[in-house]
């Protein structure tokens, strides 16, 4: 059923090589995939109008690997033993497909080979079955056998978090009493121990904050100021949690999310032509977090999709920057929360035609300031800057309004990243449009557009 909707839409435009390579779980896969992105090892490769691609890849064995990709998911299936996801064969196949009609020809619906058709068919059935189910399963009660037991569990957890928050408050008060200078001497161990206590208290949000507090004394000049700021905000979160029932509901939901409770996915879903502005991964070795920023062409709304992957596996959800999809998203609860879940997709991704609207640097800082009213713990806020120029300044870089005068410093992290240099190259000293995260540490550029080309240049 869902497929017929898709089929009525325009034919999906093939992805670009950059977009394909952005899906790679790591650098090694990227290289291995690139090597397979040529006609040599492939046979029986084909694609269908609704976004499925398949091919046989000759490997070291006698039997070629069967590789199938559903680009609307995207979802991958390969008969190779690799635990990388997507594997190099899937990446190679997509690169080949990105090469155009000559490399991977489009075929009619009936000409899909059986080995690919079976899996694709299975996926379609599963996804339409899921869609039928969703309206029936209503809210969090669906699946929970006993709502009363669930409520008791939630209460027990809230109790533990409260105990954790009180303990953390005590730690922070002790720290202030003894002075931050002594905290530097105490080293990281003290913080690790406190973080472990917060994990025990089932407050992962607090645990994460505490770990970051532990890293600040080693973060270079000016650390006492940063440590005091973050201690104060952690204190603010503790106090907010301890009085959460007195807070207005949207703020209470934000506090619960910050402490580490998963906010329910609620609110009406929003259908729009969502532009994928950026996709980037961060991780600590155990867990990879993928962030995907969306901008709704019609609603003007910005949304964040999160996807997680265990060590060595790329997160499942992948949307290459620079495409737009007609899709529904459902936001999470909470004031100032941009997180959403991706729902049904009504089209295959097509390249975006123009950058999102934006403003000067002063407006970017204003919108961060506004967002802090709903969520004072925000480190940054997604904004688009128009007509800005990257400028070297004081050993770092800033983005300055092309008209001169005002500028935003870039955060320190991208300096080592090739993204900064792509941004500078794209600008060539002239104005560009840049999407990124604007916050108290500065601006982190994630994607850029130049008037010279229609290309979305990913900076991640």
């Amino acid at each position, binding site marked *: 059923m869902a497929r017929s909707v898709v089929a009525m839409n325009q034919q999906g435009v093939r992805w*670009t*090589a*950059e977009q394909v*390579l952005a899906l790679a779980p790591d650098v090694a896969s990227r*290289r291995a995939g*690139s*090597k397979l*992105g*040529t*006609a*040599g*090892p492939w046979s029986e490769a084909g694609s269908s109008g609704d976004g499925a691609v398949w091919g046989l890849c000759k490997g*070291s064995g006698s039997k070629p690997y069967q590789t199938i990709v559903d680009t609307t998911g995207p979802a991958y299936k390969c008969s190779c033993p690799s635990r990388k996801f997507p594997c190099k064969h899937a990446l190679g196949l997509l690169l080949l497909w*990105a*090469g155009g009609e000559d490399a991977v020809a489009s075929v009619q619906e009936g000409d899909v080979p059986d080995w690919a058709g079976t899996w694709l068919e299975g996926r379609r059935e599963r996804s339409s079955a899921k869609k039928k189910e969703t309206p029936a399963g209503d809210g969090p009660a669906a699946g929970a056998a006993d709502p009363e037991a669930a409520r008791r569990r939630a209460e027990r957890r809230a109790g533990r978090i409260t105990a954790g928050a009180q303990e953390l408050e005590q730690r*922070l*008060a*002790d720290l*202030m*009493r*003894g*002075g*931050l*200078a002594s905290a530097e001497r105490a080293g990281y161990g003290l913080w690790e121990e406190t973080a472990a206590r917060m994990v025990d208290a089932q407050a992962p949000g607090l645990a994460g904050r505490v770990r970051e507090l532990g890293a600040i004394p080693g973060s270079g000049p000016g650390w*006492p*100021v940063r440590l005091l700021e973050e201690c*104060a*905000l952690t*204190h*603010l979160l503790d106090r907010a949690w301890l009085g959460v029932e007195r807070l207005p509901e949207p703020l209470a939901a934000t506090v619960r999310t910050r402490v580490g409770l998963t906010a329910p996915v609620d609110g009406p879903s929003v259908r729009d032509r969502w532009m994928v502005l950026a996709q980037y991964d961060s991780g600590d070795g155990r867990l990879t977090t993928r962030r995907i920023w969306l901008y709704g062409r019609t609603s003007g709304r910005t949304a964040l999709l999160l996807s997680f992957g265990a060590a060595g596996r790329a997160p499942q959800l992948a949307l290459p920057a620079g495409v737009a999809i007609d899709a529904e998203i459902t936001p999470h609860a909470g004031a100032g929360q941009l997180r959403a879940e991706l729902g049904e997709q009504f089209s295959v991704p097509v390249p975006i035609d123009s950058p999102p609207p934006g403003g000067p640097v*002063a407006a970017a*800082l204003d919108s*961060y*300031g506004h967002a*802090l*009213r709903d969520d*004072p713990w925000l480190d940054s806020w997604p904004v688009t800057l128009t007509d800005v*120029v990257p*400028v*070297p*300044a*004081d050993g770092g870089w*800033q983005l*300055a*309004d092309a008209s001169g*005068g*005002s*500028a*935003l410093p870039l955060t320190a992290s991208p300096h080592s990243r*090739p993204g900064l*240099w*792509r941004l*500078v*190259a794209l600008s*060539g*000293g*002239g104005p560009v449009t840049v999407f990124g995260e604007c916050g*108290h540490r500065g601006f982190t550029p994630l994607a850029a557009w130049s008037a*010279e080309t229609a*290309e979305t240049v990913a900076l991640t």
Partner: protein
Amino acid sequence: MTATTSWEELVTSALLGTDRRPSAPAAPGQDAPVALLDAAALHTVRRRAGLRPAPAAALPEPAPHDPRTPLPEAARHRLTQLLAGRAAPSGGRRGVAPDLAELLPQWLAAANDHGYRAPASALPALLDAARARTDLRPQALAFAGPRGLWLARLNSDWKFALRGGFGSAQPGGPDHGAALPAPDDGEAVRRLWDEGLFAERAALLGSVRATDPAAGRALLATTWATERAEDRLMFLDSLRTGLSDADEPFLEQALADRSRNVRSTAAELLSALPHSALAARMARRASSCVGPDRSGDDAAAIVVEAPHECDAAMQRDGVIPNPPSGRGERSWWLGQLIESAPLATWTARLGGRTAEEIVALPVGDGWRDELHAGWCRAAVRQRDAAWARALLGPPTTPPAAGPGTQSLAERSKLLSVLPADERSFWVASFIAAHGLSEAFQLLGVCAVPWSEPLGRAVVDALDIARDAGSYPWSFSGVMGLAERCLDPGEADRLEVLTTLPDEPEGASPGAGGYWSEAFQRLVSTLRLRAAMRSELAPAGLDG
């Protein structure tokens, strides 16, 4: 809670501890640490909410305009793929997939031939590639163009791009390459020459010399006396471009230079000018050492009497008196005289014989190798095709039995003197006669894509090697060259070789499979090159 306490006071008291330094006045019943944290939280959120833009630093000078055509979409994606594959680990079994890193040089050359502009977003990867591989630099930097140089100035990783000499390799475009003045803009040239950094001056001299050799020499002469010795050497070297008899007076004067390296470079350049006075002096010296054997009836032999001393005049003409260890000084001096004497000397000296006839003459007292080696160097230096041909001998003659030299490096230098057609025909015949085992270096000097006879000869020889049952990696060098240099149009003809053959009698186990794989890689690389070529074809022609 209070906001009256200043942020600095809060930080101080947090650093020292509220026990020692209480700051924020606590509300009744509130602990000092809590009061401090409350005040700090208020400060922090207020500061963040009220962040204002920083003053902008001076905007950079925009990159110069690049009038070249933008890359077609498909070619842009191909470039991304090639640059991503550049860093792919090499080594190990190569499988059937093409080696992308090896295709980047010819992709860049083709893109430059078409006069395309590099996509701005690809410039960092392009500069990184050029940084890692010096052989890519001229083409990569030409492709990167003015914006590439603009960008390289901002990142010390890419300062290699500013060392000069690369910008001038770029075809077309009046304002291409480095920010060099136009070679005919006398005043700007003059100013940069007087005030520029060494790299800029070297690039400038190169570009002026390339368009107007006399102007380049004149420019160099204006400051010659005041240049440092190592700079003189580099500048003198740039006179190789457009070298002519008109340079002789300048070079003759450089023979008296204070620096020995400058003197010997000047001598080498002069000896490449057969009409120069130095060449005549060398011819006189060489003729006194080498001549027809008068003892026999018809003088059908050469006698050699190596020089007995290296006098001051010889040294002034660039002859180096001290031989490397292991060589006799007399044969060392002889070699230098032979390589610097004009080859026309020998026709006159040896009874009007042609180069072929002279090379065929017997040489007395075991001097043949020394004499022929000197002639080889002379033929290369003087770009003398007739002598190069004679010294190479017929391609069917086994190298050990032929004239000239057995050294493959020397032979490929001789080949590079021949016209391109003749060169590839010679190598094709050589391969047909002797197989591939010694062909690698010779193939390296042949024009790309290989001519049809050469391509056939290589493929036939590979086919023969396969039938002989050896492993393909014995020929991996030639195979790699074939992937890069065979005409992409040959792919269809080669397809038949990719099938798995029956294992011939006495073959190495499994060799057939590896050969099939190697040929598959060859075919897929050729197909990829054909695709690359059509992607780069200007819009409207590629269909």
